[in-house]
């Protein structure tokens, strides 16, 4: 019987691998996701036949409650809140690993025999990674939701405290391994790891969130793999390491798109601001041209090609639907409209793509950064909505700037640039953006959604 279950687990693992592969191609993504779900169902059903299980009522109750909450969240969530939801789900995976490890420790220390060392190591690892994932994700959730400051929260001695906590975590792990029957050690480990999880994410600011969300995704996989070692269960080990690897790849992609190393993002050290770089007054002084929705509408009338560059500001003002309507209106007048999407625009990997898809923007109209830059000089109007650092030409021109070398969308090369923004306030990097004072730039100050709606009205009137 146990052999049959294990073969079934192998089938489930294969389904996960094929499913995950499917998720990397647009045409196979839906099927990939379904295969993953089928694999999961299979794994759970097989587990229910395990002879260790004496009673089912609690399991069924847990499955029903969890399933209902999960389904409700998945159906109700607004697409603009996607980053928060992903963060929370990551965290739940982490806490589940902690709880399973805690239960396994108790089960294995009930009898007189001492549990094997590899088991206790796995239990410590599972509790540790799970707790870091859970609390890190909760902090990420709080930041994304705006419950705690979106900014990087830095304080003196942060690195030292983190190092001390890391040392404490290691020491407590050793204690768990040496004296597993002492339950205090494990829960103390979980407690200290929780503090570490909070402190690791607290210093990371808003625009770096895509990296953190991807990294926590990787951690949630590693937590599952550690739980696999606790239970000597291969399907958990395989699945956990697959997810760990995929999260790590996404993390790498995000870091590359910001031209920063992972340690640099995690320890919150953007190059010190204000040391010799030009001040806002020097950059903007008298050179910024402000415009009105009506004026932009007139520009649109003669434009043949328009490229829209969305940023986090579009998500904040929920402007994706008006933006799509504006694009449709322009297209109906014979203008070509495309979207240039920067890989780290928004608060999670692919954030802008999800929002635009929600607003029914056709997949073909979405172009990535390299495609957009290839022929941006042929674009009549580049319309920047709520983006700042990802279109700052300083990244290209000033090797001493905080964002030097970060790949950007070269909107400054378009014939005309229209920037919709609330004010001239700097973006996350905290530096002024010379784009706003270029000869071919026009600033449209105001809320993104309202500005776009006004443009639509002006276009319709003319």
């Amino acid at each position, binding site marked *: 019987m146990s052999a049959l279950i294990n073969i079934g687990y192998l089938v489930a693992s294969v389904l996960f691998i094929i499913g995950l*592969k499917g*998720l990397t*191609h647009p045409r196979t993504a*839906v099927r990939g*996701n379904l295969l*993953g*779900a089928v694999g*999961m169902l299979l794994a759970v059903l097989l587990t229910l036949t395990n002879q260790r*299980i004496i009673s*089912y009522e*609690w*399991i069924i109750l847990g499955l029903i409650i*969890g*399933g209902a*909450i*999960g*389904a409700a969240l*998945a159906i109700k969530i607004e697409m603009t809140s996607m980053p928060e*939801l992903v963060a929370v*789900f*990551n965290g739940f*995976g982490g*806490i*589940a690993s902690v*709880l*399973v490890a805690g*239960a*396994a420790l*108790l*089960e294995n220390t009930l009898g007189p025999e001492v549990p094997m060392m*590899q088991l206790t190591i796995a239990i410590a690892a599972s509790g540790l990674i799970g707790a870091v994932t859970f609390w890190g994700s909760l902090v990420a959730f709080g930041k994304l939701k705006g419950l705690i400051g979106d900014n990087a929260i830095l304080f003196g001695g942060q690195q030292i405290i983190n190092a001390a906590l890391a040392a404490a975590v290691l020491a407590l792990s050793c204690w768990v391994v040496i004296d597993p029957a002492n339950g205090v050690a494990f829960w103390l480990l979980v407690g200290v790891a929780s503090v570490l999880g909070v402190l690791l994410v607290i210093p990371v600011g808003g625009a770096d969130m895509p990296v953190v*969300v991807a990294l926590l*995704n990787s951690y*949630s996989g590693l*937590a599952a793999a550690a739980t*696999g*070692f*606790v*239970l*000597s269960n*291969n*399907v*958990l*080990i395989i*699945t*956990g*390491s697959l*997810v*760990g*690897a*995929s999260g790590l*790849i996404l993390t790498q*992609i995000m870091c590359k798109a910001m031209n920063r190393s992972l340690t640099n993002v995690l320890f919150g050290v953007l190059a010190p601001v204000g040391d010799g770089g030009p001040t806002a007054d020097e950059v903007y002084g008298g050179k910024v041209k402000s415009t009105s929705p009506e004026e932009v509408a007139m520009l649109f009338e003669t434009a043949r090609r328009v490229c829209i560059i969305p940023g986090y500001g579009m998500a904040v003002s929920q402007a994706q639907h008006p933006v799509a309507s504006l694009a449709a209106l322009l297209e109906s007048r014979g203008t070509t409209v495309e979207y240039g999407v920067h*890989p780290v625009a928004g608060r999670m*990997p*692919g954030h802008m793509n*999800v929002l635009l*898809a929600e607003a*029914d923007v056709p*997949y073909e109209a979405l172009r990535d950064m390299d495609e957009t830059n290839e022929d941006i000089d042929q674009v009549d109007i580049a319309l920047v909505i709520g983006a700042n650092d990802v279109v700052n030409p300083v990244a290209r021109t000033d090797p001493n700037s905080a964002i030097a070398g970060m790949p950007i969308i070269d909107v400054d090369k378009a014939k005309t640039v229209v920037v919709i923004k609330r004010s001239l306030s700097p973006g996350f990097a905290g530096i002024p953006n010379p784009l706003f004072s270029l000869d071919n730039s026009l600033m449209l100050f105001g809320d993104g959604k309202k500005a776009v709606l006004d443009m639509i009205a002006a276009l319709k009137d003319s």
Partner: protein
Amino acid sequence: MEMFIIGLTIFVLAIFVGFEIITKIPPTLHTPLMSGSNAISGITVVGAVLSAGSQHTMVTTTLGVLAVIFATINCVGGFMVTNRMLAMFKKKS
């Protein structure tokens, strides 16, 4: 010890498989890939079900049931929301 070494072997090999199958991801799929893979990491539910069902003590059962709830939210919610997102991408193509 042998079980542990086998587990470790599988772990390392699966990481390589993970790196190999996820090669080039179009940016459009970054979010669905993340939420989909996250749902898969809810596989911890397998361990949770075992803890909840073996009824060693009150405490282990309670821990197990809580773990079942969290892991199931992770799986069910993750797969469903991924499906919802992918459906939005699909309907236009």
